Structure formats: C-alpha cells, structure tokens
C-alpha cells in the first residue's frame, strides 16, 4: 500500500459533538463537547476552569472529584456529554462570594495542604461528607475520604481540618 492509499486515521473521523446544558456552580452553562471527553477534560479544556485536577485519569486518586447532582464522583469517569440537565459543583463554586467556605478556612488554619494538588478534590469530597453527616467522627472522615489520595500530608491535618470545619459549621 502506498502512502497516498493509506487510510486516514479514525482520529479524523467526525463524531457529532454533544450539546450540553447544565447548571455549573449555580450558573446555567452550555457547551459543545466531543463524546469521548470526560467531564474532567470538559471542565478544564472546554469550559476552561482548571481547579479540578487530573491525577490518574482512571478513578483511583480522587483529585478530579466534583459533585454531580449532589453526589461526589470522579469526573474522569463521567463523560462531559452526561452533564446535560445535571447539576455540577466544582471547587470553584465552594466559596461564597467574597469569602471562604468553612472547609477552606479550616484547611488553611490547620495547614491541611502542602503542595495543594489534591486539595480541590479533598474539599469537594469533604463537603459531600458534611452535607450528609454534619458531625462525622475520625473513622467516618477517613472512610469517606479514602478515595482521595494525598501524598504530602499523611492525612493527619486533613482529618483535623474536616473536624474543625464541622465544629465551625455547627456554631
């Protein structure tokens, strides 16, 4: 087969982009996304918000955690196309205008972040926990956050920060 007869790779095969309308961090948002683009890739490259991070792209580290219809998910294992008609909350939507969420404040006060790459995922995951269980004990916090890998902190100060945020919220 000569070069000119070689088939065009399927990368150039056109698949219809999907039109998505969703609620993102409280705002009505719409975009076009290729079907194979994950929600993670969609947020970062299509919508353009990069707070949600890629650590592994296969659901084993939690750095890409977002909230989908109120449940925390690994956005690398959700398709952008699935977001149609759904509600998505990312790290960018955690803080109230002009302020910080108690979790963010607690993380800063407890020095619960070092490099900070896992922090957005941890914060979104921790919010999911506090939404469901306002007074979690240490075991529950660790269990809930087991899907969020952190390599810097050893989790000690992270757990303390979540406990502190729970207290702050109770006040």
């Amino acid at each position, binding site marked *: 087969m000569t070069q000119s007869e070689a088939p065009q790779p399927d990368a150039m095969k056109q698949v219809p982009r999907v039109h998505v309308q969703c609620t993102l961090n409280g705002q009505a948002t719409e975009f076009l996304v290729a079907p*194979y683009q994950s929600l993670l890739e969609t947020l970062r490259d299509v919508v353009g918000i990069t707070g949600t991070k890629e650590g592994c792209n296969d659901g084993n580290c939690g750095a890409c955690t977002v909230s989908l219809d109120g449940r925390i998910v*690994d956005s690398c294992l*959700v398709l952008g196309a699935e977001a149609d008609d759904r509600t998505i909350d990312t790290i960018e939507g955690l803080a109230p205008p002009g302020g910080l969420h108690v979790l963010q404040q607690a993380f800063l006060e407890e020095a619960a972040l070092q490099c900070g790459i896992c922090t957005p995922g941890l914060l979104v995951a921790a919010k999911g926990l506090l939404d469901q269980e306002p007074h979690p004990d240490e075991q529950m916090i660790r269990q809930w956050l087991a*899907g969020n890998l952190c390599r810097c902190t050893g989790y000690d100060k992270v757990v303390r920060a979540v406990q502190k945020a729970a207290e702050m919220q109770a006040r």
Partner: protein
Amino acid sequence: MHPFEYLPARNLTEAISALARHGDRARAFAGGTDLLVQLRGGRYELDAIVDLKRIPEVMELRLDGDGLHIGAALPCYRLYEDDSIAKVYPGIIDGAAVIGGTQIQSRASLGGNLCNATPSADGIGPLIVHSASAVITGTEGTYSVPVAGFCTGPGTHVLRQGEVLMAIDVPTPAPHFGAAYQRFIPRNEMDIAVVGVASSLVLNATGDRIESAMLALAAVGPTPIVAAAAAESLVGKAPTEESFREAGELAADASSPIEDMRGTIEQRRELTRVLTRRTLAQAAERAARNR
C-alpha cells in the same frame, strides 16, 4: 481513544436497537467506572456507547413482597443508604459497599459489576448466595438467568449481541436466613479483592442446625466459583467453628487461584479458608437474629 458516539437511550427499545445495530462495536454505559477505564486502556475500540441511565427500568429500586428488584444501572449508594434494604439484605450491602471508594459508589452499579464479569468482582458473590437472578432483555424478549450462571469467563458473560441487563432480582430471604460477604485487600479501601467469599445459611427454627447453605468465591477462578461441596458439607450440621473450618477446607479445595501481582496461590488458598470461616460465622449470626 477511537472516537465514539454518545447515545443517551430514552427507553429500552432505543438501547437495544442501538446495541444490536453496532454489535461488538457498542457497549452499554452505566456507571462507567470499568467501561471508561478499559476504553482508555485500549482493551477494545467502540463506535458507540449507549447510556442507559435515563431509562427508568434500569434505574429502578423496589423492595416488596417479591423481594428486591435492582435496576442494572442503579448506583450502589442507593442500596446501602436505604435502611430497609440494609436490614433485609446486609450480605448484599457488604459487597455493594466496597466496590470502590465514595466517588465510585456514586456511579458504580451491581449490574455493571456483574456485566464486567471480573473474577474479583465484589458484587457477584453476594447475589449468588442470595439466589439472585439477572433479568435480561433484548430483541428476542425478556428472560431471567441465575446470577450464578451469568459469568462465563474473565470478562465474558451470557449476554448476546443486542441484549442488555435490565435488572437484578433478589428473592425475599427465607426465615432464619443470614448472609455475609468479606474480601481481603492489602489496604483498607480502594483495592481489588485478593480473595472474596460470600456465604449464606438457612438455620432451623431453633438455630442449632444448618438447613441449607451457599458459598461463592471471588478472585480464585476464572469466574465466581460456587463452592457446592463446601456448602453441602454444612447441611445438617450445627453452625459451629468446627463446621465452618471444614467448609473452609473444602472451599479452598474448590478454588483454583493463580499467582499475580495481587497475591500468590498459597496466600489465596489460605484466605479462602479464613474468609469462608469468617463469613459463615457472620452469616450464622445474622441468621440467628433473623427470626
């Protein structure tokens, strides 16, 4: 990744016809926690994925006089956050609750776990020992097969082209029924089971005799293994450590583990013994409470 189309099916007919049309170049898409990983890893190439999650039948959850009816794409958290289900089917919750961490639980489904058909699946053994059946629908109608017969090899199952798993039916447990699933992992979360064992027992009214038992082993064979001889050995016996130990030996005999990066053969056989004993003890305890 080879570009594929995203087809959100609104009903079963759409899903079935899309799957039939594309043959093995299309797959059903539930939680995606296995599908997307495998696609990215290049295990197969697809032209289309058919999203089932907007089809009501596939997302149902019903507990009634007939038992538990679980839509195939229902995320696991829906099961264990339901107290009434957790009360009647703790053995199924044991499995459903450990398929990945919290984020995975929001998406992964028992149906998906079943269709992924990996030997180490945590959701399948519990279903087997509850005598669950898989409700399949396709171009040729709807029918059920026992979950015990669903997997045919690592990653393969009885679904034919154009068929989709619609739901899983779990009958109401008999009186004095108890079941449990435990798996061994090196960490405390996030791992694939090195070995998993699901046990169920039915005790007599006075709780001192085992009327029937079932045992299913995960990660020690090409499919979940129904350890029939081990289960049979329990019938008529008292629910004691001695009986459980003997069953554990027979379960280990029924296993055919391999050595891989998650465990050695010797280790897996030993874990089969240990987990059989432990789940039988737990099942007996639950059976005793279930009068």
